[in-house]
């Protein structure tokens, strides 16, 4: 029986706790009697037979949807869209959930005699996936059956001939979607719900739409009023995405398939990363020492290469299919069973240790903007109710924050960092003055469409992602980061955690209360 998550009140007997630091980690002793550590629940047991569960979900769908076999018929146009490489994290071992689900859908489509089937990677404004990444997500059988015939596509949010405007929502939001999707008889969307932000109408209204649509929910105003991003009923971003998704649903039949994973994020060789420190046995301690010492002598590129080769043993814990909103509600219930941790009250300081990978640097570099997005965007928003840190409190982030960018994946990030952030860090000002220029820049557009680059506007979204935290927190301190890069973002650099805690006292007073959010594995703090 896996143990639920819990909050450890730190006392003198508490051993040092592990804090992620990019491609590495450190052990830090937290101040006794005023610190607490939030630990994630242990991984739930996976479905004993995921393939059988998938088939059952498809023939017994939720909501008012008919069983999938009844929706399939010869002569129809079937489009299967699936989440891109930003999910799950770290990438999971094969077979990926997407492969299992899409194979089951294709079996039924083959039985029904459906010839016109197209697969679309729902990239949104993310970079295109490489063939190897597609193979990993979909499996060889699917890749070899579709890719050579040009029926395995990647969504292009900048191809005017392949986008179609289906209307405007009651709030005036443009709904411009992939033409193939709009002209399909059935859209099957295959999702992996790693965090509560994913899934539902957001899958289609982000992954299959154009910049003209995405900008309606990816902006400073919605993100400042998404409290949190992981709590859909209180997220303005999701409200907009829901409006857009509902309108799309009036034009094309959507059959949503969502899956959840347990939080078994690291292989057994690195079991110590998921264990509570006082439960480390000799092997865990030896592995930690050997790993840390080994990492100390490796170059950043080598470390990155090693860490990005980690495949998570995560396993499917639930699968739901049918009508989008009913399915998503059930998915969120399943996700909460794995991730929710009850926390009493806010603290003056919150500490986040960032790992090597986030949604936007799979097989890539976590550049300073992604550090900001991961810490103030994702980690800060891993709450329901209220943030872990009080208004005006301090966020301490542990990450090397190198002044380094992947030139192929993140070209517009480089210019954003050099040009925009050197002028201002105010999200509203950035949005007003710079966004449109970057979003419509022909060179970025070209790289997005033909290379493996994120869209020109993507670095802006990274910054907006932290807009709520920037507004809420009094200061952000980054431990062990490149000082110039940290200062460029308007944050304060610190050499050690002790220094950072001392600096935080300037903001929140002496002997502040501290919460260390020990993530990964992913969890969601239910703050009362």
């Amino acid at each position, binding site marked *: 029986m896996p143990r639920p998550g819990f909050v450890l009140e730190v006392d003198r007997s*508490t*051993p*040092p706790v592990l804090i992620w630091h990019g491609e590495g980690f450190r052990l830090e002793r937290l101040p006794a009697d005023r610190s607490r550590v939030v630990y994630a629940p242990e991984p739930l047991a996976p479905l004993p037979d995921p393939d059988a569960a998938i088939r059952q979900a498809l023939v017994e769908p939720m909501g008012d949807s008919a069983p999938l076999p009844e929706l399939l018929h010869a002569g129809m146009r079937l489009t299967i869209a699936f989440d891109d490489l930003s999910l799950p994290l770290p990438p999971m071992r094969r077979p990926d959930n997407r492969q299992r689900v899409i194979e089951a859908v294709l079996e039924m489509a083959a039985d029904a005699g459906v010839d016109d089937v197209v697969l679309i990677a729902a990239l949104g404004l993310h970079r295109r996936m490489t063939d190897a990444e597609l193979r990993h997500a979909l499996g060889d059988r699917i890749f070899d059956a579709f890719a050579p015939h040009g029926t395995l596509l990647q969504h292009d949010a900048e191809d005017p001939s392949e986008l179609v405007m289906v209307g405007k929502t009651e709030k005036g939001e443009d709904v411009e979607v992939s033409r193939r999707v709009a002209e399909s008889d059935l859209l099957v969307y295959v999702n992996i719900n790693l965090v509560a932000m994913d899934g539902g109408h957001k899958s289609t209204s982000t992954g299959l739409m154009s910049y003209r649509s995405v900008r309606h929910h990816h902006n400073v105003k919605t993100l400042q009023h998404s409290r949190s991003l992981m709590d859909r009923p209180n997220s303005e971003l999701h409200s907009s995405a829901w409006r857009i998704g509902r309108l799309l649903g009036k034009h094309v039949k959507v059959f949503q398939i969502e899956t959840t994973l347990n939080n078994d994020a690291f292989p057994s060789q690195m079991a110590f990363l998921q264990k509570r420190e006082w439960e480390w046995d000799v092997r*865990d*301690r030896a592995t930690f020492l050997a790993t840390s010492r080994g990492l100390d002598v490796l170059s950043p590129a080598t470390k990155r290469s090693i860490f990005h080769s980690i495949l998570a043993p995560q396993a499917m814990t639930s699968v739901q299919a049918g009508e989008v909103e009913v399915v998503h509600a059930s998915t969120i219930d399943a996700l909460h069973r794995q991730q929710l941790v009850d926390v009493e009250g806010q603290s003056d300081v919150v500490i986040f240790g960032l790992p090597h990978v986030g949604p936007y640097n799979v097989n890539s570099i976590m550049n300073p903007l992604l550090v900001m997005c991961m810490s103030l965007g994702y980690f800060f928003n891993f709450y329901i109710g209220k943030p872990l840190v009080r208004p005006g409190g301090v966020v301490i982030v542990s990450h090397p924050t190198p002044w380094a960018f992947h030139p192929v994946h993140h070209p517009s990030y480089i210019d954003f960092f050099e040009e925009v952030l050197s002028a201002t860090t105010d999200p509203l000002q950035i949005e007003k003055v710079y966004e449109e220029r970057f979003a419509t820049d022909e060179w970025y557009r070209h790289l997005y469409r033909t290379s493996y680059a994120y869209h020109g506007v993507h670095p802006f979204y990274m910054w907006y992602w932290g807009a709520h935290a920037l507004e809420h927190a009094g200061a952000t301190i980054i431990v062990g980061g490149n000082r110039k890069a940290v200062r460029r973002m308007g944050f304060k650099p610190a050499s050690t955690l002790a220094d950072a805690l001392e600096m935080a006292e300037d903001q929140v007073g002496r002997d502040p209360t501290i919460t260390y959010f020990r993530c990964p594995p992913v969890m969601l703090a239910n703050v009362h």
Partner: protein
Amino acid sequence: MSISEVRDRLGAVGRLGSSVRPSSLRDLPFPLSAPSWPASVPRPPKRSELGVNYGTDWARRYPVRLARAAWTDFVTRPLVSAVAQPSVEGLDRFEAVVGPVIFAANHSSHLDTPLVLSVMPEPWRHKIVTLAAADYFFDTRLKSAYFAFALNAVPIERIKVSRDSADRAGSLIAGGWNLLIFPEGGRSPDGWGQAHRGGAAWLAARSGRPIVPVHIQGTGRLLPRGAKRIYTGETKVTFGTPIIPDLPARELVGQLEDAIAALGDEATTDWWSARRRAAQGTTPPLTGPDASAWRRAWALGPSPKDSARRCSPADERRWPPKP
């Protein structure tokens, strides 16, 4: 290299930074030493990896079996032969039986298991598992590993037959292994036999495999319970006719106990006398005379420590009275 130097060298890894100079390995900071346990976190009940939880699957892998066969044939047998000078009776009684079977013997000495294993004919000798008291033979890693290797011992609880122990023994029988069990649950405390517990009979009834009763005579004098040294002398092992478990387990217990007592009588007298007494129901029980403590002790004969009076065990014992 001193402990301080070890700490300093490895300390940079964990950013430990303690200024206290350690004097022993336990003083080293985490993670070089074990972590402390937070006071606010209740300790879970610790599941020991010893005792009944000790895993012995490794001892039945082929390379280990080969090593044990060599150990039994070239170490155990010569040693037992030198110390216990065994004679064997009744091997013909179970040669027609198809394994696996359960060998059930009386128990008065640590010599019993190596003695039985060393006189056991092939193919039984190298395909047998000894069920051994978890609390005694598996209380340390070294002992556990030794007994698992040398005797192919498997831990069981002697107080009660737990579901785990029963399942483990059942799966061994199902896997084709013969079992050696001492139904008394432990060595004799006073040199006389003890009432049988139900484990062997229950396993036989459950698995449907025959029980071969075995009587061991003389080992209690060479290495009795609590002895600090081992004596040399003669021993005798008598195998009985296999008992087919067609009775309920409770009745099987009595049947097995009677069979081993009859073998004990046979070892002391002769087959015909023992057979007649068994038919009349007058087989002297292995539990000894129903008399006062000193008379029970006296009936065992001279102490093995009294070397001037040592002779063969059959002549020494004063009970059962000779006809």
